[in-house]
């Protein structure tokens, strides 16, 4: 049987359209609905502020809302676990951070492993610095190392918490110097600083932007920054390297998506994130929060994550957090 052309032609067109719409890969259309960015820290802090600004710019670029969802808890572990429940389709992104992503899965089973996420870009770094109370006898990192050598276990220090990047890295430092110190968790960076101000511990090792005001006001003395070069807000404080210790630590933050996200979506996201993360208005914001702009593309970020995991595994075993 032959269809009259008058019917066949529209039918063919309709079929064509139908076929096209089915075949049209989600990729070409991504994003076609709002995208969620899980920030595994509390709303309102510097990191959340950064995430919200990035989200706003991504919305402008991709024309769909990017919604920030704060899920704090477990040093970032809880929100990371929540992001890992999502499908790998690029509609749930994670603002990942050093400790939660690279140390927590080694310590316990938090509901995700590092390889569950595909990096899009590293965004910022927070340099970590060592500070003592203003009336402390310690004037340099050398003083502290010497004191710890003289009395093993006699020096106490505070970080945001056990298993945090700051804690793990200070243990790396101690091991390299052949010293033993006591660690006390501060339940957050500000809590760790409080423990130093009250004299409960000898020094604090947390993100340097946390105590710019206290240092300027003469309550704390910053004696070493564990970064490659000096930071602009503490121009007079020498790095660990300048003091003869090859030791750099930074807490980094970056965007990731769940594994299984189609390659085309990943590359589209990487391109857009790169564009918004490196523009001048974003840099200005970082500066206000005393973040170091530290853009790394997807591959570079992946390498860094892998390197961190390898390093953390050794230390965590040393300090007894993994068997």
């Amino acid at each position, binding site marked *: 049987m032959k269809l009259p052309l008058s019917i066949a032609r529209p039918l063919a067109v309709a079929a064509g359209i139908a076929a096209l719409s089915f075949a049209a890969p989600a990729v070409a259309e991504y994003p076609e609905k709002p995208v969620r960015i899980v920030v595994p820290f509390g709303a309102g802090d510097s990191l*959340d*502020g950064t995430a919200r600004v990035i989200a706003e710019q991504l919305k402008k670029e991709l024309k769909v809302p990017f919604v920030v969802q704060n899920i704090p808890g477990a040093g970032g572990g809880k929100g990371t676990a929540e992001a890992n429940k999502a499908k790998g389709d690029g509609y749930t992104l994670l603002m990942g951070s050093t400790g939660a992503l690279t140390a927590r899965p080694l310590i316990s089973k938090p509901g995700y492993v590092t390889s569950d996420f595909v990096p899009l870009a590293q965004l910022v770094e927070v340099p970590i610095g060592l500070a003592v109370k203003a009336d402390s006898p310690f004037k340099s990192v050398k003083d502290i190392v010497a004191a710890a050598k003289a009395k093993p276990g006699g020096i106490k220090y505070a970080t945001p918490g*056990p298993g945090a990047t700051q804690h793990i890295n200070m243990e790396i430092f101690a091991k390299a110097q052949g010293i033993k110190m*006591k660690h006390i968790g501060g*339940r957050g960076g500000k809590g760790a600083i409080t423990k130093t101000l009250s004299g409960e511990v000898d020094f604090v090792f947390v993100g340097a932007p946390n105590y710019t005001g206290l240092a300027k006001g003469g309550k704390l003395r910053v004696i070493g920054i564990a970064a490659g070069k000096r930071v602009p807000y503490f121009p007079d404080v020498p790095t660990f390297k300048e003091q003869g210790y090859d030791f750099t630590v930074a807490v980094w933050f970056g965007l990731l998506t769940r594994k299984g996200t189609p390659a085309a979506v990943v590359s589209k996201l990487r391109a857009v994130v790169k564009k918004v993360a490196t523009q001048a208005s974003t840099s200005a914001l970082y500066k206000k929060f005393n973040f170091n702009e530290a853009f790394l593309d997807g591959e570079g970020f992946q390498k860094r994550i892998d390197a961190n995991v390898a390093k953390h595994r050794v230390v965590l075993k040393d300090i007894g957090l993994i068997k």
Partner: protein
Amino acid sequence: MDLISFSAIGTALGAIADPMILLWILIGVVVGLIFGAAPGLTATAGVAIATPLTFGASFEVAMALLLGIYCGGYFAGSIPAILINTPGAPGNAATALDGYRMARRGKADLALSLSVISSFIGGFVSILVLMLAAPRLADFALEFTSVEYFALGTFGLVCVAAVSGGSILKGMIAAALGMLLGCSGIDPVGGMTRLTFGDPNLLGGVPLMPALIAFFAVSEMLVQAARRDSLATLPAQRRVGAGEVLSHYLRNKWLTIRSAFIGTGIGILPGTGPTIAAWIAYGESARKKAPQAQEEGDPRGVIAAETANNAVTGGALIPLLTLGIPGDTVTAVLIGALLIQGIDPGPFFIAEKSDLFVQILLILLFANVCILVIGLGTRRWLPAILKLPPRILIPIVGVLCATGAFAINNTPFEVGLMAVLGLAGYVLIRFGFPMAPVVLGLVLGPMVETNLRNALTANDMDATVFLTRPIGALLLAAAAFTVFWTWRRHRRT
């Protein structure tokens, strides 16, 4: 006061007297009232959500909005606490204990009035303290090490566990259950996970807000649903006059002042907040409680809890503005807002930017006046909600509870947790266990545990440190005295 010059006061007054700024404070207070009154949404959430909106605003506008939310939010949680036994925020849980009992006996108007005025008094006293003694008090707060925090937590725990109803044994069991719940999550000292049953949702521990909603609201609704007669016997709501309200304050002036200072003092201590302040002040008020007041709801409980709760605001700003260290969760969020304004809060802030400091004081003062006016203006019609029959009220509260639990992280886990804990709370109530100690254990347990272990680690496991540091020893002695006194009172009756 020596830090603030008259010229600074003049400049600040000029900046704040702008009607637009006053409007922003009012908007902040109203937003805060909504966030505070809705269970699950807290002042912290309100300030956090509003902070990015202030990125482009001036200092006065940003502070007007955010501090307005702060003060409004801390107060408003008492409204649902009193009317439907659902604390709008953790700091208002202690208010629910007596406030809700009062509302069930026709005294909702009195309870609400007391809560509004107490909030104002607490806020006002804390502003005065902030203005007069901020730098010196911040130094005092730094005397607190793990030893003192442990002692403070122990003191708080003893206070309420001892006065929570008939059986001390049941109160202690309830507190222990709460502390057990508080152990869940990542061990804050060792870093290992505990009691999470392999569920990553529990990594951060049992979240306080869903637990509060469960133990107060859900279990109470289940109790009411199980009762056939219930609302038929509710007496009519009685209005109160200004004289009657005033007489409560005259009779309890020392309690009010003491609560204001407890709240301010605990606000100053970093890592604490309104929840702990309200409980400790409530515990103080309950020490002199007559047994029948336990059943009918004691106005003293509302006065103490709400005064202390709102006094935290000015207190918590002290370490923030003098050290850059937040005194509670809202001030932690405020750091970001200040950084955006180009202000890095620290020891030099009050001295160098005294006009901005005075602006903050004036904004706080005006925000508290707004609370007083709005609160007293609306208290008359709010109790109308109690006239709803249970078959309507209970489902409404149920939906409110579920949305509140969901709103915390926008994840369904908290809703499930709330349901499970609510059911558990109901079972406990049926067996005669009081709910207050469970919540208190959950709030103070982690504080006591972490600080006990940290204090011992820092001092080479030498327990005598708890006796050799004066503040810690004093607090522990007070705790011991409370236990002794409670034991004696129970032996006599």
